[in-house]
């Protein structure tokens, strides 16, 4: 690129920085209010009157990393249960239903005790206990108004109703017409006031089907589960959030309710609402409904810290599927001073057609369909992995991916990134923030997440200012610190039926061509 063009670019980028951001925070300040209710719940409201609708995002600061030992998958299981109703929603007679649900738990505990006897298990007794448990499930079924919670939400015009459980957090969200704000406040607070674990064991089957879909019947799912297990020996990040099969066949409704009681505490939750609302009218509604949630002690979140890795680890899956290569390096959590340096590295190696891995592995060497590098595997709240991956084109092997990725990693360690590359990172960070401000669901998610993660939604903007300060030396320093042999875990799918021993005609492989001018 001619120097003059580069100079102009730099100017325009600088011009972009100053006015846009200070102005934007200032104008947003007027449209955003944050309050902590008496019970400890944090609520953020943002006025955005583009259309008579609003979106919300409930952020619970507990995820699969909080799953108890032997009960993996429980955080996600509770997320499913949060759609099953309460003592007032989803039941024809809660007083009677409650009694049967308690009987189910007793029967289930008896069944599990017999099932898991190491010595002296009585097969006939086991069958009887299983029948008693299942008969009670059928008995409870007659009190169920199936999916009434979802029905209330959907018939009132909600769209995008869903929830998600990650290693770090559990989130709930949908959008509604603006005239349903009070109804929403009732439903969303009611949901976490007295959730009832009805239809628990059938929903557990549903979750098991989800595991089959995402992990057991998916080659990449199988790889990731093994890869993460290899990378983390001590921290729960080594256990996939969906849960181990045995645990999914073992934990109880009692366990799920205990998880709720411990972690779904107002002081551990943040709710953001964005859309066509007015502060004066909305705060009393929020106080009235969400104020009902009882204040309980904030859970202890201390988890063990993964010890330093002192040897390279590798998992190799032999599959009939086509090959895949991934390698991960331990890095500190999102509060690290270097967090944005990692973001910059990720951007330089994998964002768009100018990125290093695209240009090297995909465009020039033609050995990969796709390649990238990213943080946040499998979460970011605790120390986690920065991972590089590449998907080979026909005829190319995981080993070739490894060699090509390592060459790019060595470049990061031994040479500075260019001025243009670093400037692109900064320009893109600003532009993508601007683009993200134009829709309610996205804003609600970002405000709730940054408020919960940093204690201040403004950090969303400060991050762009911080990335502005990242230097070439930072990138080299962090790359050298992180991308070392003993800090690495490798995951490979080797294909027992490699496609294309030779590439198809008209598609020559691995022969870089000179771009035509």
């Amino acid at each position, binding site marked *: 690129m001619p120097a003059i063009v580069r100079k102009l670019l730099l100017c325009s980028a600088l011009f972009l920085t100053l006015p846009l951001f200070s102005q934007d925070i200032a104008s947003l300040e007027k449209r955003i209010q944050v309050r902590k209710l008496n019970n400890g719940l944090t609520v953020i409201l943002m006025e955005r009157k583009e259309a*008579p609708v609003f979106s919300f995002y409930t952020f619970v600061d507990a995820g699969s990393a909080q799953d108890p030992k032997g009960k993996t998958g429980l955080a996600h299981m509770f997320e499913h249960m949060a759609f099953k109703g309460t003592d007032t929603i989803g039941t024809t007679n809660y007083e009677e239903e409650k009694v049967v649900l308690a009987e189910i738990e007793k029967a289930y505990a008896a069944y599990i005790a017999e099932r898991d006897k190491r010595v002296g298990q009585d097969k006939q007794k086991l069958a009887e206990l299983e029948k008693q448990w299942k008969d009670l499930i059928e008995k409870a079924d007659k009190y169920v108004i199936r999916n009434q919670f979802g029905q209330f939400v*959907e018939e009132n*015009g909600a769209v995008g109703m869903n929830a998600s459980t990650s290693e770090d957090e559990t989130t709930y969200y949908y959008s509604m017409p*603006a005239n*349903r704000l009070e109804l929403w406040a*009732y439903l969303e607070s009611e949901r976490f006031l007295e959730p009832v674990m009805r239809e628990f064991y059938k929903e557990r089957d549903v979750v098991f089907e989800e595991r*089959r879909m995402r992990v057991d*019947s998916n*080659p990449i799912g199988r*790889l990731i589960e093994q890869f993460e297990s290899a990378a983390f020996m001590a921290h729960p990040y080594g256990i996939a959030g969906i849960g181990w099969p045995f645990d999914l066949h073992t934990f109880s409704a009692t366990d799920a309710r205990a998880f709720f009681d411990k972690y779904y505490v107002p002081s551990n939750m943040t709710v953001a609402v964005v859309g066509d609302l007015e502060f004066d009218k909305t705060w009393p509604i929020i106080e009235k409904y969400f104020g009902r949630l009882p204040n309980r002690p904030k859970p202890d979140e201390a988890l063990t810290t993964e010890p330093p890795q002192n040897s390279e680890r590798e998992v190799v899956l032999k599959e009939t599927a086509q090959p895949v290569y991934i390698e991960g390096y331990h890095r500190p959590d999102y509060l690290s001073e270097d967090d944005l340096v990692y973001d910059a590295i990720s951007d330089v190696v994998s964002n768009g057609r100018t990125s290093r891995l695209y240009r090297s592995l995909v465009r020039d060497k033609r050995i990969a369909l796709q390649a990238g590098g990213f943080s946040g595997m499998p979460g970011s709240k605790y120390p986690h992995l920065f991972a590089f991956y590449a998907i080979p084109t026909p005829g190319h092997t995981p080993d070739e991916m490894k060699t090509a990725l390592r060459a790019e990693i060595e470049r990061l360690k031994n040479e500075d990134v260019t001025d243009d590359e670093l400037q692109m990172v900064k320009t893109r960070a600003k532009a993508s923030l601007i683009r993200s401000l134009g829709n309610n669901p996205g804003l609600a998610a970002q405000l709730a997440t940054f408020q919960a993660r940093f204690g201040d939604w403004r950090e969303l903007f400060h991050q762009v200012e911080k990335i502005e300060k990242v230097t070439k030396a930072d990138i080299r320093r962090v790359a050298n610190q992180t991308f070392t042999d003993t800090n690495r875990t490798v995951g490979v799918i080797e294909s027992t039926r490699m496609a294309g021993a030779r590439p198809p005609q008209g598609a020559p492989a691995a022969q870089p061509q000179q771009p035509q001018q």
Partner: protein
Amino acid sequence: MTKRILTLFLAAFSAIALNAQTSTSGTKPVPVPDKTKQAPEQTQTQNSEISRITIPPLPEFRPQMPKRIVLSNGMVVFLQENHELPVIGATMRFRGGSTLEPAAKIGLTDVYGAVWRTGGTKKRTGDQLDDFLEARAAKIETGATDDSTSIAFNCLKQDFNDVFTAYQELLFQPEFREDKVALIKHQIAGGISRRNDDVDEISGREAAKLAYGPNSPYARQAEYATIAAVTRQDLIDWHAKYANPTNAILGVYGDFEPAQMEKTIRDAFEKWPKGRKAPEPAGQISPAKPEVYFIPKEDVDQSSVQMVALGIKRDNPDYFAVSVMNEVLSGGFASRLISNLRSKLGLAYSVGGGVGSDFDHVGMQDYAMSTKSASTKDAIVGLKKELNDLITQPPTPEEMKRAKDSILNSFVFNFDSKQKVLMEQMRYEFYGFPSDYLERYRSAIEKVTSDDVARVAKKYVHPDQLAILVVGNSGEIGDQLTSLGQVKTIDITIPPPPGESGTGSTAKK
């Protein structure tokens, strides 16, 4: 193809993000804007707290319609100003997509849609264009679907002049350089080599072939040979034939003054010589016999079940009753399929389906679920029962209310952003639908009765006429399928590249 792999790969990573809700397959009713309700509404429910909450009328809201202009060469332009963010963007859509590809060159528009952008312009290579755009965090992208191709941009307002210049260069002087033709062909071949790795990809693709016939323009697939046959000249010819103003619709949105933008657009496109509209696709549709089809995949423990037939066209007057029927059957948590097969029986995480519709051709009727190998037959029997019930047990008043309320109360989300309104208007223009289609949809939905739903269920849903496709583990499934009728095994072996007799995974074992 590459995109598909990206999706797959990311989906696997987000095995950490575990959604509670199932996805229902492509039968989502198309929604619709809103005449503001004036009377206060009450939810009807036995929950006393809810019934105490009054729902005020939705505030008066008239979505801002884009300005429509027709240039002298026939090009239709929509301008949608929006000053919320300092961003400007546009999409130009041309009629004609993959359904017009010659049979020997399936995949031509995939190559075209990629190389149009990556191949650069007469003045700059695609790589130079990449550098230019990324330095501005701007995008210009091209692409192709079954019925159209498109070129779009999005940039910060301050970069509009530069980016719009590059956009015009790419539109008027694309170069389709050979190195990028070879690159994308190599990439697409990579996608072909991986197309049997994922159950859902297999199932979706093969189900469409059963519904439409394997050679129909709506189901046929690229092979190594058809991709290898595509040349740079094909791309140049395609562009010359279809990228003309008579065949185009342009939508511009963002932070601009309309009068000034209109002048910019006229200056750029008014002198573009007229061309011809793309023809209608002329493919034959030949659905498979309603039998049981099986594809063995031994590395899974869950069967994918899809039951398919033809659906309807969007302009069918029954579309509105069908939309309500689909909502009753699989729209949301309280629908029949989710309540009965997922929540009550615990048979599936993912279940859904309905009578699908497309704007310009008959859609697909598709009922799908994934279940553990051992309950494969239960799933099929369960789906069939629900379809029979749909015919014999028309929706109750409660079901009708739930279904219609869901559609009508969420109506405002059809036009809750200016860009959505623009995209809807471009879509109606493209398919020749009236610009007030959403209004018509809304009032038609309001009129649908339970009898209407019963009538369309009888007319379109024939549980015994569906082709049943199962992809799963033959050892684990055992003989469950034989009791359902004659089972035909589909061979999905990937035909080897031309000139190769077959090695590796492409060989028949």
